[in-house]
């Protein structure tokens, strides 16, 4: 049969490149494996790539470019703002788009019925961290330190705070503060925590590299040794050198790539990845890339067609579909995960390791 | 009808640049303001044209006070000055230099251009309208400077060393020009110069300053006869 085209419109260069890199690698691995097994509906998958140079406006051009080349589905950067301009174009042209965005708007409500996020909603991430910290770890007071630079972190800390107060009451949140990722120093914010009469049991940090790790460094330098929790935006350990000997740190990941994940599928995926690329995956985002292709291929097989109006409904009917990133469910209304388990990864004495898998019980999506 | 500065004092960080000096310039007269270097002449022009607020004293135009007025206001109300270092708009053409000064009048660009041409002709440099202001020689630069001042239809024209760098012949031309401007514009002219020949030929009245104070006033002949003036200022030329 004719080969089928998948578009990849992501950041092959520029600021966003390191973040997209492992997603792209995961996707390329999936394509390679699927092709080796005979392709999708007998067609080999070919890739039409477009470098958005880390500039969101180029995403729309990229979408048009790969659609012009016949792409049946397009992968966009794992960030709503980066992915949306292109996904809109894909939607208008009746092409399925995938992203790892953690904003539910990357889906039917925001972009349109053909946009899917393989990720877990940031609201769910905040809720599950709150539940785990309060119920499993037994921490009773929390402090929120929010990096006010991007929408994801705002939403993460927002949902965390809401869920935390539901669990422990208003008083359990002993304070909150904001900073900007680019702030050269957060001395004032650190001093504010240090000045609290009773120190919090846990600090919820919603940020990303480099500002996030640097914030932890400054907290630790000021003698604040409380547990620090973060969402998946601080996935990976490439930044860990920022805080040498980091302890008491807990981050939400899609899976643990430190060869200790309890999920055999994932563990095996990370092994295959290492074989393929000659190095360990540097973030669990590779799971997302792989799963996007996996989801689309499965849906296309089931639909017996590459057309969006056939593939879409099949995706919408996914109920705990087994993807490497975890059991995945889409409904016609919601194209993002809320209850799928995620992995807590910790760092003690500078060593990262698997802790547990958790999922959210109560999620407020608004 | 006069521009009048009464009892002016200006200080700079303790130094008194001008101390209780009064100057009055009537329309139609040519007044010479002379004196040694650092006497306060330029500072006086700055005061008269609104560029320097006096610490004590007042400036009045035709009897009306000027408190709190800006430099452009002075220019638009007929008190126009030139600079010791001409200060043309070097990146604009000669014509545009004049048009800029005409911009305060509500006339079209076209009329402004025509008016600029008239003024340049009047100064005898009509052929240079299209040159860049920065490409002129010293003499022409000064002529454009005066033309620019004339564009504001001065009632009082304050000229700060207009003949500096001119030779004797050119200075004589300038003297005639100043008298003609006075006639054609029926304005008062305040002339600062160190070229005594020019001053003597051109001015009806002299005001002599030294070290920030008035040391003599009167007709050129009276002033030159003043022994104090001779020793403080003239040197060998008096001999």
């Amino acid at each position, binding site marked *: 049969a004719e080969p089928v085209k998948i578009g990849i419109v992501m950041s092959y*260069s*520029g*600021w*966003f*490149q*390191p973040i997209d890199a492992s997603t792209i690698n995961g996707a390329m691995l999936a394509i390679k494996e699927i092709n080796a097994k005979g392709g999708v509906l007998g067609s080999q998958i070919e890739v039409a790539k477009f470098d958005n140079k880390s500039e969101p406006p180029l995403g729309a051009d990229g979408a048009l470019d790969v659609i012009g080349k016949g792409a049946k589905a397009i992968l966009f950067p794992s960030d709503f703002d980066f992915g949306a301009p292109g996904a809109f174009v894909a939607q208008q042209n009746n092409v399925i788009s995938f992203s790892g965005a953690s904003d539910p708007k990357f889906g039917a409500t925001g972009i349109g019925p053909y946009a899917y996020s393989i990720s877990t909603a940031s609201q769910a991430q905040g809720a599950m961290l709150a539940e785990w910290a309060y119920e499993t770890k037994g921490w009773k007071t929390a402090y929120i330190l929010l990096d*006010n630079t991007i929408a994801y972190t705002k939403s993460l800390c927002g949902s965390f705070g809401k869920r935390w107060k539901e669990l422990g009451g208003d008083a359990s949140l002993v304070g*909150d*503060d*904001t900073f*900007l990722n*680019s*702030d*050269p*120093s957060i*001395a*004032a*914010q650190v*001093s*504010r925590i*240090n*000045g609290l009469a009773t120190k919090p049991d846990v600090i919820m940090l919603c940020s990303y*590299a*480099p500002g996030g*790790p*640097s914030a932890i*460094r*400054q907290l*630790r*330098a*000021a*003698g604040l040794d409380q547990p620090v929790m973060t969402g998946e935006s601080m996935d990976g350990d*490439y*930044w*860990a*050198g*920022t*805080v*040498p000997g980091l302890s008491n740190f807990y981050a939400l990941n899609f899976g643990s790539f430190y060869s200790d994940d309890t999920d055999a599928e994932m563990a095996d995926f990370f092994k295959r990845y290492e074989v393929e690329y000659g190095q360990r995956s540097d973030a669990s985002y590779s799971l997302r890339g792989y799963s996007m292709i996996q989801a689309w291929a499965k849906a296309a097989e089931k639909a017996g067609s590459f057309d969006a109006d056939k593939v879409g409904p099949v995706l919408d009917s996914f109920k705990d579909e087994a993807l490497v990133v975890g059991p995945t469910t889409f409904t016609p209304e919601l194209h993002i995960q809320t209850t799928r388990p995620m992995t807590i990864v910790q760092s003690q004495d500078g060593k990262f390791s698997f802790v547990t898998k958790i999922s959210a019980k109560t999620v407020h999506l608004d | 009808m006069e521009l009048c500065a009464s009892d002016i004092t200006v200080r700079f960080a303790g130094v008194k640049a001008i101390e209780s000096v009064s100057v009055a310039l009537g329309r139609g007269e040519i007044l010479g303001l002379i004196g040694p270097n650092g006497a306060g002449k*330029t500072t006086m022009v*700055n005061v008269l044209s609104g*560029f*320097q607020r006096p610490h004590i004293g007042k400036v009045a135009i035709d009897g009306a006070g000027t408190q709190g007025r800006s430099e452009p206001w002075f220019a638009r109300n007929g008190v126009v000055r030139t*600079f010791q270092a001409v200060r043309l708009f070097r990146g604009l053409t000669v014509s545009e230099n004049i048009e800029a000064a005409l911009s305060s009048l509500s006339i079209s660009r076209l009329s402004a251009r025509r008016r600029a041409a008239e003024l340049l002709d009047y100064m005898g440099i009509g052929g240079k309208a299209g040159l860049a202001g920065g490409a002129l020689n010293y003499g022409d630069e000064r002529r454009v400077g005066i033309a620019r001042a004339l564009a504001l239809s001065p009632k009082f024209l304050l000229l700060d060393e207009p003949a500096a760098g001119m030779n004797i012949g050119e200075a004589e031309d300038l003297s005639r020009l100043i008298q003609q401007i006075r006639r054609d514009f029926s304005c008062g002219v305040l002339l600062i110069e160190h070229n005594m020949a020019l001053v003597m030929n051109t001015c009806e009245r002299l005001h002599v300053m030294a070290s920030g104070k008035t040391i003599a006033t009167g007709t050129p002949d009276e002033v030159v006869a003043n022994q104090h003036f001779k020793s403080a200022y003239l040197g060998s030329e008096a001999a």
Partner: protein
Amino acid sequence: MVDLIQILVDALSVGGLYALTALGIGLIFSVMRLANFAHAEFVTIAAYLLFAFSGQPLVVALTISIVGAVLLAILTERIAFRPLRNADAATMLIASFAVSMFLQKLLVFSVGSRVKTLDPLPMLSGPISFGGVQISALKLATIVVCAVLLMGLTFFLKKTRFGLQMRAAADNFTMSRLVGVRANTVIAIAFGLSGFLAAVVALLFAAQTGFVQPRFGLQLVIIAFVATVIGGLGNLPGAAAGGFLVGIISTLLQAFLPPDLRPFREAFLFTAVILVLLARPQGLFPARGLKERV
């Protein structure tokens, strides 16, 4: 009381970093009337050098970093700024943007935009206790280094022959050469000094943040740039004072703004900057003779 001391130390240490950066920018401004945005990349590249040699003893890494930054600064002057010596301020500013952009993109291209981590001053990472106040050793070091360098530089510029020549070259380049000042050398040395200051900033800043990436120096330099201007361009103590001032205002805003308004902190900070400029267009401590007389 303890709180107030803490806030003061925070403000001074944040301000110290800005002040040091502002010194480097102010130095070049006073010598060349050039607002050098590429200073950001001097800092960034010095930090990358620290990272690249982080396996070596600190003295080695620091020496390489300083030498690298100094050479980079001198080279930049030679290639990009010397040909523009008579150009207007806007053109020079844009040229420095272009240099900055070029170096930044080159870094992204060659070393990638992912953060590199380093810990150049591990011995200063802990807090020191002073009568109940916990002060990070690094903050203290920042304040001290800033004070020492400020005094040293001021002395150098005000009291030495060389400083006089440097200011002369800044004031009137051609005339300074005509009286015998080796102006090109003098300016190159000024750039070298600014490179040195950038390397010091890189060390202290990297010790605080623990990472370096291609935009490492950018934010710092933008703030320092603002500080230089409100401090009084062409006046080094003024630039340093501006740095401290911005650091202090920013820390105080963060400390005392109600939570709802804290996200707007920068807006307040820069409104304050505008107000200062409106009140004192030449900056708080303008250099002598910057404003010409008529």
